[in-house]
């Protein structure tokens, strides 16, 4: 299987590898996939008070395309609002990385991961505002 230059670049120099404190109030975590399927993605975003993503980190167990998809996604979401981040489509990722058809599900996984992370931080914030109100 031939990989595109962009996939190889992200794979060899993955951006924003790491981990944020998933207990922190301003961190949203999305973990998707399953070891048995050969792919697990953990995407984390750190959000400031005005709802802008300041930092993003990932770790991925999976093929090169899955690693590249998540690496690219962390670059894209930084500086975006939660709404904007949640609207990123897997097709945009697949197009940017020139993924072949058998690798589309790797980009789907990345879309699922950012959606899950946004949902997680929204839940946390929801809880927080409720507490403040209560």
């Amino acid at each position: 299987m031939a990989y595109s230059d962009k996939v190889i670049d992200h794979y060899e120099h993955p951006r924003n590898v790491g981990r944020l404190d998933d207990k922190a109030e301003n961190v949203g975590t999305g973990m998707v996939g399953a070891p048995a399927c050969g792919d697990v993605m953990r995407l984390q975003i750190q959000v400031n008070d005005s709802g802008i993503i300041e930092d993003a980190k990932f770790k991925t167990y999976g093929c090169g395309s899955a690693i590249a998809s998540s690496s690219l996604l962390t670059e894209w979401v930084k500086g975006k609002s939660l709404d904007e981040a949640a609207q990123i489509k897997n097709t945009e990722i697949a197009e940017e990385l020139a993924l072949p058809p058998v690798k589309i599900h790797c980009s789907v996984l990345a879309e699922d991961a950012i959606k899950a992370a946004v949902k997680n931080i929204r839940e946390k914030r929801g809880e927080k505002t409720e507490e403040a109100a209560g």
Partner: protein
Amino acid sequence: MKLPIYLDYSATCPVDPRVASKMAEQLTMEGNFGNPASRSHLFGWKAEEAVEDARRQVAELINADPREIVWTSGATESDNLAIKGAAHFYQGRGKHIITSKIEHKAVLDTCRQLEREGFEVTYLNPKEDGIVYPEQVAEAMREDTILVSLMHVNNEIGVINDIAAIGELCRERKVIFHVDAAQSAGKIDIDLAEMKVDLMSFSAHKIYGPKGIGALYVRRKPRVRLEAQMHGGGHERGMRSGTLPTHQIVGMGEAFRIAKEEMADEAKRLVALRERFWSQISDMEEVHINGSAEQRVPGNLNVSFAFVEGESLIMSLKDLAISSGSACTSASLEPSYVLRALGVNDELAHSSLRFSFGRFTTEQDVDTAAKEVRQAVEKLRELSPLWDMYKDGVDLSTIEWAAH
């Protein structure tokens, strides 16, 4: 050193230069190009002589009679001819066949075809060590069992079955015993005067011969009958028609001759190389050998590196030519059916690599490979959320994953 380093000898081998030069002599006007079936002139007689010499060379490696060797296009065809040929010939006696879940597709798919034709097939599950034990075969035997087909050495995990013992119990019950020896011939001893095997498949390209040529051993005493699958000019005593490819056959003969001469020394060298490789990676955490560590061919090592995925590992190891037990690329997202049958969990099966060493592998190759594997595994574990969890003491099997 030449890169990439070839460590996929179980998939195929380069042709030994001694084999290649013999083959080249069978092609041109100046060479031995005749049709071995031409009875009316010298060209045919010379070609026939070369073919018969090669038949003897193949027979000698496995201690058989040359008249028991039938040329085919490879082990795939030999498996087809043996299994379909015997099943069709003996179906009057019964329609039950025994094989295993970890056979090569050439056997499994042939059995599936026979199922469609009304045969019944039992697929034995090997034990955790990858071995199919004689007791399992004995238990699966029925009144109407006509054929047992099991591999000598498995292509993915390199594990060796005790075919001598299984042969005994097949013979006692007058059941035909076929063995796929594509991965064992030229690597471990095969003595067909001793072993009670009725049909045995061989391939030249797994032992430094050319691709596209193989043989089927068909026992004469007691005689085994087959229904031909390829009809035509009645070559190979009617069992397999088609003009014999002299250059391919001579190549296979020479490869088998060299194997007989050098096998014992080569085996020692390969075991030493494998040990050398393993000693450089086995101290990493959570690295496991798949299949029996003892009952295994010299050149094979199948290893799972937990928490890293096989395909990305291969992508990191671009200087190494190896194969992965994970078939994620095939869009099926299926880990190897062989590892799965051994009860290896899916996560470890996705993390497996097969290293196979051979005649042209050097100590330097092995050292470089070990170093690169270490680096790649360490790098990918840094990238792996599963490794984080393992390090945090999380038991991955307790987590509810959203499988997709």
